[in-house]
């Protein structure tokens, strides 16, 4: 059977495609090129015109769309129906999509409906020899391997951050519209809600991830805990750098144990075995401890530095590029001072950039 590669994506609320979706398009292009088969594009959402134009120059032979108010918001029944209709219309054997929350919710069900198969969290697709193998992680990023499947259609759900985002000229495209009868559903989407009333500290697009460990809530040199100051230091750093905030499991669990907590943190910030494994160019950890299982939280951070008091800590040794053996409170106080000075300096004041680094 000749393969057809379908690139499947949904639009965002503003009608655009997310960065993760554009990265998946790059993977779809290289996969189709490797297999020497045609690429088709399938889009669904409230209004797909802008999205179709943005990928109009990607080299796809056909464009399909399911659009309308029923498909504007994420919902299993309508999204699955749209994705299923597109996959059927294109007769695709390989379906490439981004691992967004919206697609991750429905694509396994769609693969089942099409008697197909699915692999998610795909970190690479190798189609160089004319067949397809996908790389993915097992045991929460502790083992890696390649998989091949003979069953078709095969849905490949690509992790964000593993490919460069597609960039191309905007080309007006009139996609072939597929009419989908929305199945009766008992679910109504209400909208998005921030995880807490406090400032959002999870920023997937940030250049830097700051990982806070349980040490921030432990007794310090004076025999006292200083969680309020810890929170101020962390938030000050995040405010000045725009970094995303991650946390170890032990720190988020402390709240459940009724101990002193950092209010800026929740389970949403947790990285590692039972948390997320975000992708950022740089990562700085402070007061984090633990061995291999805990360290998977920053497996996909390219440059890593750590500040803690234990030179032999498994979190940092062999895992970070640089380990500073020092009191994180003192280092962060100084670092925030430098960042504040830079901010002041960039506002046109005459204060030197490194004024408080003695």
């Amino acid at each position, binding site marked *: 059977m000749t393969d057809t590669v379908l690139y499947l994506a949904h639009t965002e609320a503003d009608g655009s495609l*997310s960065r993760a979706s554009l990265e998946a398009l790059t993977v779809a292009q290289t996969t189709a090129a490797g297999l020497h088969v045609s690429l088709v594009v399938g889009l669904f959402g409230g209004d797909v015109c802008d999205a179709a134009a943005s990928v109009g120059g990607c080299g796809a032979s056909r464009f399909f769309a399911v659009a309308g108010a029923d498909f504007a918001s*994420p919902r299993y029944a309508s999204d699955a129906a749209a994705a299923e209709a597109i996959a059927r219309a294109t007769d695709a054997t390989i379906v490439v999509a981004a691992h*967004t*929350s*919206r697609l*991750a*919710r429905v*694509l*396994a*069900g769609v*693969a*089942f409906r099409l008697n197909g198969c*699915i692999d*998610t*969290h795909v970190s690479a697709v190798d189609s160089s020899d004319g067949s397809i*193998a996908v790389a993915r*992680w*097992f*045991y929460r990023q502790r*083992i*890696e*391997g390649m*998989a*091949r499947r003979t*069953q078709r259609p095969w849905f490949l759900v690509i992790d964000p951050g593993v490919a460069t985002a597609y960039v191309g000229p905007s080309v007006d495209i009139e996609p072939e519209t597929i009419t989908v009868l929305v199945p009766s*559903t*008992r*679910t*109504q*989407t*209400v909208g*998005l*809600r921030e*995880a807490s009333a406090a400032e959002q*500290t*999870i920023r*997937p697009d940030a250049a830097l991830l700051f990982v806070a460990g349980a040490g921030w809530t432990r007794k310090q040199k004076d025999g006292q805990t200083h969680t309020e100051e810890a929170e101020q230091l962390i938030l000050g750093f995040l405010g000045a*750098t725009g970094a995303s905030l991650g946390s170890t499991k032990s720190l988020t669990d402390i709240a459940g144990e009724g101990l002193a907590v950092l209010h800026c943190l929740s389970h*949403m910030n*947790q990285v590692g*075995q*039972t948390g997320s494994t975000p992708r950022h160019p*740089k990562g700085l950890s402070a007061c984090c401890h633990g061995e291999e*299982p805990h360290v998977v939280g920053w*497996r996909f951070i390219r440059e890593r530095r750590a500040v803690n008091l234990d030179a032999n800590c498994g979190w*940092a*040794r*062999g895992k*970070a590029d*640089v*380990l500073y*053996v*020092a009191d994180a409170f003192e*280092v962060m*106080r*100084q*670092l925030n001072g*430098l960042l504040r000075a830079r901010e002041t300096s960039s506002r046109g004041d005459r204060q030197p950039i*490194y004024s408080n*680094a003695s």
Partner: protein
Amino acid sequence: MHIVVCGGIVPDPLQTLEPVATAAGPGLKNELLLPAILDPWAGCALHEAAHLAKQCEGSRVWLVSLGPKAKLQQVMMSLAQKAPFELVALDGPAHGFTDAHETAALLAEAIVSIQGLDRGRLLLFGGWESASRGQGVTLQMVGERLGIADQFQGVDRITLRDDGSFEVMERVEGGRHLVSWCTGPPALLGWATGERAEPRNDPQMGMKNMRTIMPALQKATPVSLAAEGLSYHDVRLPLQQRQTRIVKDMPPAEIALEIFDWIAND
């Protein structure tokens, strides 16, 4: 309310994992000797199920689990002390290289055969991803097989209303939640961490649970997973050892300056 929790077992996360090649494909070295736990996110689902069942009189909770019988028994000894549930056990492989499609078929079959389960009142729970295969697809396929069209993934909260409807909060990008309303069961919820801390051990509950768990384990149906059409290669531990530069005895101000320069240098 009838709540079925699908949850597998995984090696204790603190154990060293090493892949090995076996006749049936990749596996873990000394897999049967590694201490096991209930999959962490499935554990969250079970705790939420127990909490929900407490709120609704007449509710029942089942745990459907596929794993080697001996390992299941070991896990149940401690799990039984956490929450009241009835076990439906399937005796088969549970490692991360089994196929989710086959697993889903077996789980759906086991759920359909539960005596006394009212599928019109069914809330199908599970972890949104496992700590072994980590695909996050099994539960959706079980749901499809059971004809459940109201599915939610990455759930952190369910709030019941008096009229039987409920509000669900699912994790989405950027640390936010998607809020949806559903008119009522049947529905499927793949849980993220949820909001409940792990319950304390209750030995009395453990003894009561084990009275039904042991017979369920004895009756566990042996199943095999063929993984037809699926093959693996280059399964290995990641080579991630870095040459860490350890900086001792540097004043905090100098460390801060070095980090400042590093952050600023794009």
